[in-house]
């Protein structure tokens, strides 16, 4: 039973990172009907941007700031202007395929210009332990969990309690009507891309010290976050958050109490079950389609 606390904390910490990445999926889908299959690689790249800055001699804190700014530029602005805008006019499917190509390109570029080998990455959260309910719990797990939750709360507050958030939601719900009532739709869509870039940069900062910086590290993360977004509800931010936390915990519990060998299958089974009984996801809303 005491083991369960360790598993829950570690699972929630990993799940919180899945949630950050999954939220990006839902935000982009809601505002611009974009499924970004390079989302995992979007998490991988910021760590390498920060490492590159550090290799140039900059301290870690400066590398974080520059890494986040570069991520906003490349993964937010650049992604929208150079790939999404030109491709979206051809439909969602060509764009989705283009993001798959982007994922491959990003992986190969990092492998070519940085290294195929894993690199260590400093932790923003201090390494150590705290005692909770008589158990030693990793400070790093708690720190990752706390930071991720703080960002999710901040994002939820932005969406629900600010004028910009309301305009973003209006854009997501019906861009045509939003435009009529004076919402700067294009600006809101760009803001969504920038928020996604910030979220992946933060996820990268939190997960890379544990998973190590490697060109292929986005594969697992992107897949887990995609499943989390569908399980939670692809059209709801709170669904993506719930889905992320759920996948993180289920994955850890399955590895501990079922089998490590079949752990990769458990989220997929969960996904199939959810889709069968609740196609819109746990917290998603059904979308009507007019014919």
């Amino acid at each position, binding site marked *: 039973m005491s*083991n369960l606390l*360790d*598993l829950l904390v*570690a*699972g929630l910490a*990993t799940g919180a990172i899945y949630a950050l990445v999954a939220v990006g999926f839902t935000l982009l889908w809601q505002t611009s009907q974009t499924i970004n299959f390079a989302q995992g690689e979007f998490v991988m790249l910021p760590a390498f941007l920060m490492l590159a800055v550090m290799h140039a001699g900059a301290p870690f804190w400066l590398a974080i700031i520059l890494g986040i700014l570069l991520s906003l530029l490349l993964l937010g602005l650049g992604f929208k202007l150079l790939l999404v805008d030109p491709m979206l006019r051809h439909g969602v499917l060509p764009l989705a395929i283009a993001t798959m190509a982007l994922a491959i390109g990003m992986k190969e570029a990092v*492998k070519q210009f940085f*290294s*195929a*080998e*894993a*690199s*260590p990455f400093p932790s923003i959260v201090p*390494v150590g*332990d705290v005692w909770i309910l008589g158990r*030693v719990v*990793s400070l*790093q*797990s708690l720190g990752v969990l706390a930071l991720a939750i703080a960002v999710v709360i901040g994002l939820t507050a932005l969406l629900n309690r600010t004028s910009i958030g309301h305009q973003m939601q209006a854009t997501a719900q019906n861009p045509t009507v939003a435009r009529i009532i004076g919402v700067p739709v294009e600006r809101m869509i760009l803001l969504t891309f920038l928020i996604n870039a910030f979220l992946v940069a933060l996820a990268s900062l939190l997960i890379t*010290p*544990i*998973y*190590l910086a*490697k060109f*292929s*590290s986005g594969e*697992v993360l992107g897949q887990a976050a995609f499943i989390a977004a569908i399980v939670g509800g692809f059209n709801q931010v709170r669904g993506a958050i719930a889905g992320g936390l759920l996948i993180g915990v289920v*994955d*850890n*519990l*399955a*590895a*501990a109490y079922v089998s*490590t*060998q079949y*752990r*990769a299958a458990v989220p997929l089974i969960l996904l199939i079950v959810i889709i069968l009984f609740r196609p819109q996801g746990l917290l998603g809303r059904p979308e009507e389609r007019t014919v």
Partner: protein
Amino acid sequence: MRSGIFAGLLLATVSAATAFAQGAPIKLADVAELSGGGATVGNNWKNGIDLAIEEINAKGGVLGRKLEVTHADSQSNPGVARAQVQKALDNEPYVLLGPGYSGSVKVTSPLAAEAGITQIMGGEAAELTQGGNKFLFRTSFGQQSSMPKVAKYINDELKAKSVAIVWVNNDFGKGGRDVITKEFAKYNIKVAADLSTEAGQADFAADVSKIKAAAPDAVFVYLNEEESARILKELKRQAVAAPLVGETTLVGQKVVELAGDAANGARGHVGLTTDAPVDLVKAFREKFVKKYNYVPDHNGLKGYLAIYMVKATTEKMGKVDAKKFADTLHGLTIKAASEPGILMDVTFDEKGDIDRQGFLVEIVEGKQVVKQVLPKLN
């Protein structure tokens, strides 16, 4: 004008004659894990090979002929490795080098044997040299040599009565797990937990929780380098206090670099280490660091040695003969005094297994410290 043409022809003739006298380059083919999960293994191996070839060629080559190597990437995937080895063998190399992963060696060694080409590889799974393949040679100890030493250390030095085993679910990991489990049985050491993990696994939280729940006297970790680093970090995160013991892949230089402080205290048996108290190994380390600007792990040594195995065997034969190469290497002892590139006296038996000194090391403040030198058996 005519004299110019004559001079040119003369020069070309002289150059061709010189090249003929020196002989065409000796072609070697390397297939290694240059990307994927084993990128650390493959890139160290490749760099070791390139360093040795550069040295040998700078001194005139082997029997007056330069060595030339082509590198191919197996992507750490046995299927890709097999295709790359087939491609390499089609070009009729003198010797095939690599791969480093046991699973890849297992699927490629029949191809090299069928072609009659000697394969000098980095795999450590016990079964590789047990099947009677006369063309396969190791650059490091097989598990049948190293695991008994690890088990003896756990029993004699750590006095452990129960051990948790964590192994990677591939040929390398399963081979090591099978051998060490048998060794533990000889000492009546109980296996408190037997955990298989996946190659490339990122999250070890659940595995470490299981280890904590089993409360063993020691933990035997037998994973690839990157995964070793990840589990060391997780073991530290979850404050596992039991001694961590492994083989070369737990205490390698890359693991120490990746795991940072979490590697401190890890100990294990290593067949090769750049921290060995051997002058020739120290000299190798200096040359490698000067060329590549990082300290290699044991795979760098393995690649380097593979080339000097080629050199020593060819010079022993006195000719470049791919068909007789394997016969010559079987039973051959190469002395470091006469061939410094081999670094330590080494003997190859009839199965292609290796005999030389080994080391027991511990990671202390981010560095490998050799605690014990284990002598060559024969």
